[in-house]
């Protein structure tokens, strides 16, 4: 068939009309309908980035949701399992198709963007006080002073070190600031000829964005202003945090290439690093892969001018467009309760978000989780602006340009600040 100008224009017109018609339909973003006062009944969907694998599914559906259904027999929950890598896609496609799940798990930093666009429903403040929370844990669940999510599990970024390497070098104390960190890292770096076989410090085995944020907070820096409208990380503190990595790479005590490969034991376990940035779930990994190292690895919170521990995690929130908001709210409340939080934490080796669980057997049996929960007063979170979803994706590749020597730390931070300012200006 030959495409004539007339048929082309007709097709374009029809397509435009279709798209415009699609655009003009009312979506939840403009008319939140999450009134939770109706009957707790109906079918709801739960997009869940926790409870991975067969064991996780059995834990959620065979245990937790059975408890939920005993209390709310008229609610039918369909679970859509995902992982963090696919969570964004699932939410995007769900929103675009008008099939946003009634209840959704979100990451730290995600609440302001979704709340700002009215995609999630506010929760009553009473839910923030029914159990004991560290205020810093609740911070990422809020936007404009309102509660939008309940924290479930936390994944903290801590510093782990090999006690045996410290002992061999006669080092008795963990570093108190960056100067001590650099000194100790240099001392613990091992070379075979010209090749580094053990780095003193491995900051690159966790996401570079989260690592840099930890150091930014530890240097008394901030990401954004309180209202999320002003970029603050382009401060001397932000540049110095990135410059620290560059300096350590330059003196050989850190190596961008010597990192933990996916699915493999960490550099600390392999003995190719003496100190590393890691996640509290390392303890479970040690038990499974290197039980002989369990007693040889210690943890500490590092800071330069103030101790800071980055707090990631998973929160549960209610869609603003749920057709059964009362049922959705009931599930959010249930998933944020100690029973569900403890089970989810145990399954992942994570830190329970509720302080009341501090004395639970699980926390007592996991030294890294216990260490993290005891230091939650030093916890800091990423995000804080409605433009976070766009900005977060740009941080790692932009910082990497400085690490690999394509530009200076100052230039990389300036470039990132430009990107962030543009994103905020588009709000």
């Amino acid at each position, binding site marked *: 068939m030959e495409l004539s100008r007339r048929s082309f224009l007709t*097709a*374009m017109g*029809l*397509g*435009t009309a*279709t*798209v*415009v018609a*699609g*655009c*003009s339909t009312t*979506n939840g*973003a*403009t008319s939140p309908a999450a009134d939770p006062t109706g009957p707790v009944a109906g079918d709801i969907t739960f997009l869940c980035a926790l409870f991975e694998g067969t064991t996780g599914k059995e834990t959620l559906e065979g245990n937790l949701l059975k408890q939920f259904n005993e209390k709310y027999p008229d609610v039918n929950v369909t679970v859509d399992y995902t992982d963090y890598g696919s969570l*964004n*896609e699932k939410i*995007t*496609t769900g*929103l*675009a198709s008008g099939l946003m799940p009634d209840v959704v798990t979100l990451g730290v930093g995600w609440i302001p*963007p*979704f709340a700002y*666009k*009215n*995609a999630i429903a506010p929760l009553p403040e009473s839910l923030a006080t029914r159990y004991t929370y560290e205020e810093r844990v609740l911070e990422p669940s809020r936007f404009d002073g309102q509660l939008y999510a309940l924290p479930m599990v936390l994944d903290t970024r801590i510093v782990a070190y090999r006690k045996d390497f410290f002992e061999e070098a006669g080092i008795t104390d963990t570093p108190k600031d960056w100067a001590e960190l650099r000194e100790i890292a240099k001392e613990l770096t091992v070379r075979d000829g010209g090749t580094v076989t053990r780095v003193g410090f491995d900051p690159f085995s966790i996401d570079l964005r989260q690592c840099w944020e930890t150091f930014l907070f530890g240097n008394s820096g901030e990401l954004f202003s309180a209202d999320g409208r002003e970029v603050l990380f382009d401060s001397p503190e932000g540049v110095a945090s990135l410059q620290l990595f560059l300096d350590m790479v330059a003196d050989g005590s850190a190596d*961008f*290439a010597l*990192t933990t*490969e*996916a699915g*493999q034991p960490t550099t600390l376990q392999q003995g*190719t690093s003496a100190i590393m940035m890691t996640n509290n779930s390392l303890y479970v990994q040690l038990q499974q892969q290197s039980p002989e190292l369990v007693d040889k690895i210690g943890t500490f919170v590092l800071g330069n001018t103030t101790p800071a521990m980055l707090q990631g995690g998973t929160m549960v929130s209610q869609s603003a467009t749920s057709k059964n908001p009362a049922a959705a709210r009931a599930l959010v409340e249930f998933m944020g309760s100690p029973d569900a939080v403890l089970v989810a934490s145990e399954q992942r080796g994570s830190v329970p978000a509720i302080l009341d669980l501090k004395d639970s057997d699980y926390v007592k049996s996991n030294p890294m989780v216990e260490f993290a929960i005891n230091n939650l007063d030093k916890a800091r979170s990423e995000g804080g602006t409605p433009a976070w*979803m*766009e900005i977060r*994706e*740009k941080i*790692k*590749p932009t910082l*990497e*340009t400085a*690490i*690999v020597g*394509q530009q200076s730390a100052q230039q990389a931070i300036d470039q990132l600040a430009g990107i962030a300012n543009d994103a905020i200006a*588009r709000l």
Partner: protein
Amino acid sequence: MAVVSAPRDVSAPPATPSRSPAPRRRRAGAARRRAGMLMVAPAFLHALIWIGIPVIAAFVLSFTDYDVLTQPRFNGIQNYVDALSDPVFRRGMVNTLVYAFFTVPVAMGIALLIALMLDTQLRARALFRTAVFIPQVTATIAVALVWLWIYDPRSGLLNAVLGFFGIPAQNWLSSTTWAMPSVIAVGIWQGIGLKMLIYLAALQSLPKDVYEAASVDGASKTRQFFSITLPLLKPATFFVFVTSVISAFQAFDLIYILTDGGPANTTTMMTYEIYKSAFREFRVGYACAQSIILFVFLLLLTLANRRLNGGDSGRH
């Protein structure tokens, strides 16, 4: 559907004066057109729903700041301005061109060479054909995971082999120097199978009498290859080139698994940036504009190739 016309009796007078041959031909032609349209309808509807409407929707949305959370707002050509001034997307364009430049001709050359070898009376040629084609039908995620191990700087196969010959180990995927060549190598390896299959089918359909005549005239095998085989393979080459370029421009899964576009955007591609804009940053309108730019790239390359090769008709 069969369209049967009435037997034509030239000796008998027409039943009615109005039933002249011309209207009958017109009716038969109309019936054939209707039948043709009916037969084409399912494929047309499928293409309209799954290709036509989404393409038009993408085009329209590319002029909006649609973020799936709120309704689209018209913003003119701002997305195109942003895309063309975004250093990372521009880097993705360059990387995509580099990836296509190396994967397409190199893989085509290797595929043709293998096809020529497998077109002979080689022993166990079915086994070799299968072996060459397997990467094409293997899930890219499996391919990428195997290559992740091969490229592993500490326990990978490649560095182990290099070490055996005394060559120092490299950080294949985390070095700004080696990441792109490493991805290109996997792309070439994975793309050879299908190209080889198309070339093999084309080689087997070449007329034997032309070669016999050339042999009688004393043409060497090399002369036969350059003067007969290559020109006769022109339609196949055009097809392989166009599909390979499109495939190279759509490279995504390898990048997603092997490098995540890094380090420092060294291996990011246009498709990967489109994916990130739409699904990680929620900038769907912007991603649509990036997609339209990719489409224009592909269209221009296809038209240029058609012009350079004199089309796919095989004229030479």
